[in-house]
Structures are given as structure tokens and as C-alpha cells.
């Protein structure tokens, strides 16, 4: 074995990022490292590159035990990595960046030519170059160092198609020298065409090592998901909810959509996204990390101006220059990170009443009576096991998230944008949050719920969109959206690719 990492574990306090992971890389192979969000992939990468130290485990390079404490040390041991964010210093020019890593310039030039960008301007500052060029420079620099193990993290993300082909070809050729590549990608099609073997992680454990051939994608997906039985109960209840809703869509659509998004694009991450969101529904959205969902929600919440595209609320065109514009149009945002939305040192009551007081014309003394009435109503629904006077920072994460949602209920919300609201929240509170969202929809609100946990789609949503590579690639009713289907779609494995592209309209 060229690289042999066994029994690797990493814990942060009580949180277990890696339990018992193993990765064995043979000389002369391209080895895929796979896993769903939170499976421990990136922790494994950080350990191999020396960015963090493992709690336990053994790493051998060419049979020799090695401890890797820093990226510099990993480099000296022959492990060079290319990360999603280029490791180029923005304020230094390219030749200084090459000197910083002691990269042989000739080898770098050759690699750049091979990768399709010959004669790159080495006097340009890294910050002056487009992201795709920087990623290729980063790869060429890594290749020029001639490492035993080349570690590529989402190398093809944000690259145009022509460059992607050259990158894949170059990476494929690298193995013929007896050196190896560890390849991390969300794109299963790439994995299938490029890689020799794959290691699959789930919940911090290596659950499978397989030879990659045609059709291996299915096997990888099922390994990433694991045996499906735990979600059965919630699915049953969700099915019931879903069937209750089935009569309604006709009447919903008849009134026209609450929110229409047409051809929204932003930078390289978001390419022409279109969909409709109706009053009375919870619309799910799933995607792997970094597929453009962050940018999409920023646009919807008014925190980012799109490069292109239009948005309509209740049929009239809107343009948001500031989050306050979005709120004025009835779109409120619930972020994954509660701290972004709450005043942690203030009481639950004050936090819930904040949206009432936020309007300029309400400045001056707050109408205590009116406030109390509405807030009490909201607190009742919250089922927070603490008094409303408590500081928000003392509440658990789940209860904090309930406060962020409930305050918009108190205000009377039209459209709610939820971005992974249940991240890191216990199961019971999650259920309560789903119920809050369903109640909101039942009361006539439109809810869009992006989630990184696939089982939430059936538990809380009516239908779902799948975002991949900055586009909506699939749409389906919630009862069809079981985890394997979603996982395949989220990895870009869609049977009827042509019809799914640019879709989104039912």
C-alpha cells in the first residue's frame, strides 16, 4: 500500500466526527473517497493533510508509520492536496506563490499547458484571476511538486466543461507513474469514469471499499445511505400528511404562485434557477454542499443581488436591494445558524416581538398590551420549557430555532425561507419544527425548506426540488422522494437528464 490509514477517529468534545475510518490507497490508482454530508469525509481529508490531528488512528506511508502535524509536513511526506478554495495567496503574484511553495517553475509551466491554460500571466496577483484559473493553477502547482499522493477535494467544482475534461484526463494520467490520487467529488458520473476504487464513509466509519466499474454509482449510493429502517415511523406519518394534502394542489395552483423565481443566476455558483412556490405548501429543497443553495437563499432573502433573472411575489415583480426589502415583500429568512437571527442576550419575549418593533413608523414607545397578546400566543405554540423572560442564549439550539420561527408566526408571515433550520437539533424538537412549518402552511403561508437531511423531505414537505451544480435538476412530489431517489438526484444521477434540466415547473 502507498497510503494506509486505519482506525482513524476524531472527536470534538462530545461530538464524534470520525469513529473508525480506514483508507488504503494502492500505488498507481485513482481512489474515490465518498460519503454523504457529515459522514466525516472532510475530517478525514483534514487529518491526511495535517490540518488537524486525529484523536486515534495510524497512518502509514509506503509501510512506514507517519505522524502528520501540519500541511508543510504532509507536503514533505509526499501528500499534496488541492482544496475547494485555492491555497493561493491573493495579495501575492503567481510567481511569488510558486516560490512560497518552492515549486519548480518549468514543471509548473508544463502542467499548465497540459491543463489547457498555457502561458498564464505569472505577474498577475492571485486575486486578479478568475476562480477557475486559480483552481487549475493550484492543481498544476500540486502536480509540479510530484507528490506520491495527490489529494483532490471537489477539483472539478466551478470549472467549465472544457477544463473539467482536461483536468480529469491529467488526473487519470498521473496514476500511470505509480503515484496515486485520492479523489473527492459529488459527481458520481465522474467517479465512475475516472476512479479505480472507492472508499465509502458513513457516520464516521468506513462502510465499504469497492472496485469502481460501470454501475458502481448505485452501490455507492446505497452504501452512503446505509440500511434504511429507522426513518420508517416518520415516513408513515409523513405519508399520511402527504395524502391529506393531495386533494389541495389544484386549488393552490388556481390562485397562482406566491413566489415565482425565473432564471436567477449569480456568479459561477448559481445558473438560471426557476421554480414556483404556492401558498399553503411546504416546498422542500435538497442538494449536496456548495451546489448553489446558499447563493439562492441569499438572493431570495435580499442579501445578494442576482446577476440575472426575475422574481415575482403574488404576480408582481420585485427587486431586493436589502434584506429589509425582502421582509417588506413578506419573505422572511430562517437561517441554519440561529445566532444570525437572534439577540442572544435578550429575552425570548423581546426576540419574538422584535419584528413588530422593527418598522420605522413604530419607533417610540412599544405598545406593551398589543405586543404581549401576540407574543403570548406565539409562546404557547412554542412549547419552550422555560419562562419567556429567560435569555435566549440559555435555550438549547432547538428551542432557539423555534423562537426564530415562532416570531414570524406571531408577526403573521406570508413566505418563509428556511435554510437547514434543523441542523444539529434533537429529533423531538425537529418534529415540533416540522409541525410548526406544517401549521404555517395550513394557515396559508408558503414555506420553502432547504435541508441537508434527506428524511425531512417526506416528514415535512409536499414536494421537493433537487439542486445540483447551481441548477434545479429534478422535482418530485414528497411521497416519491425517498432517500435513495434523492441521493441519486443530488449526486447528478438522473435517468431522464435532458427533460430534468432547467425544470422546476410542475
Amino acid at each position, binding site marked *: 500500500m502507498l497510503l494506509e490509514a486505519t482506525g482513524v477517529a476524531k472527536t470534538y468534545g462530545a461530538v464524534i466526527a470520525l469513529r473508525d475510518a480506514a483508507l488504503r490507497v494502492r500505488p498507481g490508482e485513482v481512489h474515490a473517497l465518498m460519503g454523504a454530508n457529515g459522514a466525516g469525509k472532510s475530517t478525514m481529508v483534514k487529518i491526511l493533510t495535517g490540518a488537524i490531528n486525529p484523536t486515534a488512528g495510524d497512518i502509514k506511508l509506503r509501510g512506514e508509520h507517519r505522524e502528520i502535524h*501540519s500541511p*508543510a509536513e504532509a507536503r514533505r511526506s509526499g501528500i499534496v*492536496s488541492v482544496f475547494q478554495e485555492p491555497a493561493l495567496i491573493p495579495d501575492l503574484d503567481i510567481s511569488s506563490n510558486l*516560490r512560497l511553495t518552492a515549486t519548480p517553475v518549468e514543471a509548473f509551466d508544463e502542467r499548465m499547458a497540459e491543463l*489547457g491554460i498555457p502561458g498564464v*500571466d505569472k505577474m498577475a496577483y492571485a486575486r486578479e484571476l478568475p476562480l477557475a484559473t486559480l483552481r487549475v493553477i493550484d492543481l498544476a502547482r500540486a502536480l509540479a511538486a510530484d507528490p506520491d499522493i495527490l489529494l483532490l477535494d471537489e477539483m472539478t467544482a466551478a470549472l467549465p466543461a472544457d477544463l473539467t475534461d482536461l483536468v480529469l484526463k491529467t488526473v487519470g494520467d498521473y496514476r500511470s507513474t505509480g503515484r496515486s490520487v485520492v479523489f473527492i467529488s459529488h459527481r458520481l458520473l465522474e467517479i465512475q469514469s475516472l476512479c479505480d476504487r472507492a472508499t465509502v464513509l458513513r457516520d464516521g466509519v468506513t462502510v465499504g471499499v469497492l472496485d469502481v466499474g460501470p454501475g458502481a454509482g448505485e452501490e455507492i449510493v446505497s452504501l452512503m445511505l446505509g440500511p434504511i429502517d429507522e426513518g420508517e415511523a416518520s415516513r408513515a406519518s409523513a405519508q399520511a400528511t402527504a395524502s391529506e394534502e393531495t386533494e389541495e394542489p389544484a386549488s393552490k395552483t388556481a390562485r397562482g404562485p406566491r413566489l415565482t423565481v425565473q432564471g436567477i443566476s449569480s456568479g459561477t455558483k448559481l445558473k438560471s434557477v426557476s421554480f414556483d412556490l404556492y401558498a399553503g405548501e411546504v416546498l422542500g429543497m435538497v442538494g449536496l454542499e456548495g451546489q448553489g443553495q446558499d447563493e439562492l437563499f441569499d438572493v431570495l432573502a435580499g442579501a445578494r443581488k442576482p446577476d440575472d433573472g426575475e422574481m415575482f411575489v403574488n404576480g408582481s415583480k420585485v427587486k431586493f436591494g436589502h434584506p429589509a426589502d425582502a421582509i417588506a415583500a413578506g419573505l422572511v429568512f430562517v437561517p441554519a445558524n440561529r445566532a444570525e437571527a437572534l439577540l442572544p442576550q435578550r429575552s425570548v419575549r423581546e426576540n419574538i416581538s422584535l419584528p413588530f418593533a422593527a418598522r420605522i413608523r413604530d419607533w417610540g414607545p412599544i405598545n406593551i398590551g398589543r405586543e404581549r397578546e401576540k407574543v403570548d400566543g406565539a409562546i404557547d405554540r412554542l412549547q419552550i420549557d422555560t419562562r419567556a423572560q429567560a435569555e435566549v442564549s440559555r435555550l438549547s439550539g432547538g428551542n432557539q430555532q423555534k423562537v426564530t420561527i415562532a416570531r414570524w408566526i406571531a408577526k403573521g408571515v406570508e413566505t418563509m425561507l428556511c435554510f437547514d433550520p434543523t441542523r444539529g437539533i434533537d429529533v423531538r424538537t425537529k418534529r415540533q419544527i416540522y409541525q410548526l412549518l406544517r401549521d404555517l402552511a395550513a394557515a396559508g403561508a408558503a414555506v420553502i425548506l432547504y435541508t441537508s437531511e434527506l428524511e425531512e423531505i417526506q416528514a415535512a414537505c409536499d414536494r421537493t426540488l433537487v439542486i445540483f451544480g447551481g441548477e434545479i435538476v429534478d422535482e418530485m412530489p414528497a411521497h416519491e422522494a425517498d432517500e435513495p431517489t434523492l441521493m441519486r438526484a443530488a449526486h447528478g444521477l438522473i435517468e431522464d437528464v435532458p427533460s430534468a434540466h432547467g425544470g422546476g415547473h410542475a
Partner: protein
Amino acid sequence: MTAPAMAAPSGGNDLARTVIRLARRNSWVIGLWILLGLLLIFTKSILPNFGATGINNLTLAALPFALATAGQAIAVLTGGIDLSIGSIMAVTGVIAAKLMDSAGDEFAVLVIAVALGAGLLMGAINGALIWFTRVPDIIVTLAMLFVWAGTALLILDRPGGEIADWVRSLIRGTVAIEWVPRALLFLIVAIAIIWIPLKRSQLGLSIYAVGSDRRAAIRSGVNVRRTKILAYALTGLFAALAGLVVAMNTGQGDPVPGQYLLATVAAVVLGGVSLAGGTGGLIGPIVAVFILRLVRADLTFLGIDNSFATVIEGAMLVGVVMLGAVVARRQGQS
């Protein structure tokens, strides 16, 4: 592929393009040189007998500020700041004056080496504390401001000691012709010996890398700990030079630091070094020191009330930096 990546060097326009690019990249520093030139002309117009002596006095007054600012600029380039710079100057000044007084002139070179070594050490201690405690630079150096200030008073409780005459003469008078002050030569030599080789070295690149993007620096294999400690040590070295120069100028050591700290920060900012780190150099801040000293001198010549002159200085600083931000935003958009 997009255009900027394909800007391959080709044909005879190469040189012209390089020159234009260098000019654009250094536009801020070029602007500062022009401003300094205009100020010199203005000074000559309000004070017709401003000449070699005037230049000499200006340089002598600016020298400790320039050296301290060079040190501050290095700390700021790494994304930090050194609030203890004035106190380090005081410590090295009193060390030099006290030792030279008791050891005699023949040991002056040794004493200077000891004083510079002390500055290097104090800076390294600052840097090491920042790294190992993970406390922000501004807090650590604020704390060390008091520690080093107390240290200076322990060494010498009131102004005293003596600096050898031949050492003092290093920065006094002129070289060859009356237009080249020794102080200017001293400054140029100090920068040329310490900074110019360093800037091209791995350490110099690392200083910029750490300040520009710490994570990318780590991933490029930069040893952040070593870089931080060495950068602060260099800051200490320049502070020591500045402290020595103050003592050389007055002939004795003063344990109470002068008003250097905020002046260095102002000059660093005016000199085009981003407080976020990673961009700029030492030349800009040093030119900025001369501009700030000259403005102060002109306001005095014009008989403007000293308090009002301070207001004008502050307003000018805000105005110039604001202008710089506007220009930078324009460039960023285009």
C-alpha cells in the same frame, strides 16, 4: 477560458505593459511621492529660506518615526499590530544610554548590538505570546506596552545615561554635500540591509502570505508560528533602531516613551498598508511619515494654533484614507 488568464506575454508591448502595471500597482506610493514633492514646493513658497538645513532638520525629526513606522508596517503586514512599539523604543534607548555611560566609548558597538538584540528579543516575546496564547495581537501588545514601559523605568528611573559622541554623529550633519543628511543615509542603509533582502526571501513571502490569507498560507505549507514570531521580532528590531536614534539625538536615554505609537499607525495607514494585512510595503509608510512631519512643520510655520493643527492633521488622515478606499472600490468594480 476567460480573458485575464490568457494575458500571455507577447510582442514588444511587453515592457510597456510591465511598466504600466507596476505604475498602477504602486499608484498609491507614487501618489504619496507626488504629495511629498508638492508639500516641499509649498514649504519653499511659504518659507523662502527653506533649504539644506530645513531638509536636514526635517529628516532628523522624522528619523525615529520612520524607523518605528517601518517596524509597525511589518506587524501590520502579517495582519497584526504592535501597540508596544513606543515602550520597546524606550527600553532600548535607556539600555543604550545606561550601558554606554558605564562601559565607555570603546564598547559602544557592543552596546548597540545589545540594544538591538534586546529589541529583537522583546519583539519575539510579543510574537510568541500572540501565537501561544491565541489572544489577539492588539490585546497582547497592549498588555506588553505596560510590561515594557515598566521595564524601561526599572532600568533607568529618570532621563539619564549618555550616548557616545561618535555614535551621535552618525545621524548628525550631512554627507559629502550639504543636501544629503546623515539621518537620511542612516534610514536608507537600515531599510536596505534589513528589509530589501528579506522581502524577497521565504520569510518575507510568508509575512505577506499570513497577512493576506492565513488559511491559504497554512495550506501552502507556511509555518505561521515561525512567521509571526520572526515578524514581531523584526518589528522589535526596527523599534530598537528607532529608540536608539531618539537617544542618539538627545544624547541620553528617556524611560518614558514619546508619542510614537499612534503616529506609526497613522503613517502605516496613510502609507497604503491595509490594516487587514497582506498588502503594501515599507516605502509608502516611510514617505507618509515625511508627509505628516512636513504638514506639522508647515502648520507651525504658518502660525496656526497647535491645537487646530492637530485637528487638521486628523482630518487630512481620514480624508486621504477615505479617498483611497473610494479609489480601491472603483478599481475593484472595473
